């Protein structure tokens, strides 16, 4: 395994898949959030890998990743407060306890 574009892509795919696994499998909302971060990171990794290996403008990928990270921060910020709010209302951050809206 060498430092080729493909190996980066494989790593990021794996990261994505692990993120998906956590997203679908974990019951704790914080853990779900963590999985989402993994997914975003895999996308960032993708961008930077492409940045190095194929993009003509080497700042493009980096800029994109900066935005991803910034928005991820915003997302976590909102998500955490929502999760806290949920916890406050329901005394649980288990996804499966948030099943009131249904049908």
């Amino acid at each position, binding site marked *: 395994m060498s430092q080729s574009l493909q190996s980066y892509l494989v790593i990021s*795919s794996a990261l994505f898949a692990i993120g998906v696994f956590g997203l679908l499998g974990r019951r704790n909302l914080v853990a779900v959030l963590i999985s989402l971060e993994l997914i975003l990171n895999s996308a960032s990794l993708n961008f930077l890998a492409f940045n190095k290996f194929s993009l003509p403008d080497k700042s493009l990928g980096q800029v994109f990743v900066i935005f991803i990270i910034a928005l991820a921060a915003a997302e976590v910020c909102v998500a955490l407060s929502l999760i806290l709010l949920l916890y406050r209302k329901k005394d649980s951050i288990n996804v499966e306890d948030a099943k009131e809206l249904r049908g």
Partner: protein
Amino acid sequence: MIADIFFMGVALLTLLGALLAVSLKNVFYNALSLILSLFGVACLFIFLNSEFLAIIEIILYIGAIAIAIIFAIMLSSPMIQKKEEKPDVKKIARSFILAALFFWGLLQTLRRTVWPAANPEGDYSLGAIGKSLLSNQILPFETVSLVLLVAIIGALMLAEKKGTAR
């Protein structure tokens, strides 16, 4: 060669961290593993000639996001005390199968694609990034500030305990 071995190590570290982050039962450990994984990602960024991004990853992601998560976990102490019940085998199997299938599909796609020849030459400098941010990407740059503003107001609003229905 050594770089390759080091690269492999980092990659393994990243994936291991990620795996632990989603599989450990305790949320707190999850968060710690996430940090591990993010650290690996940051290292990979360095391999990709993006040292600035690696730093940002560490400062922002590890320093801010992951810590925020840990804070959140700590702040609401019962959140960790309440252990997850028995693992739901069906659910885990389902997510595993879906993730595996997805992974396999992605790999196949990647395998079948003819990738362009590597072209690592170019200007990776911070200056270039800055220039790009303030010229080509000015619109997202401005917008993202608004997003952050909204997120902050939102987070504050949600965290505030007031709020009465009319």
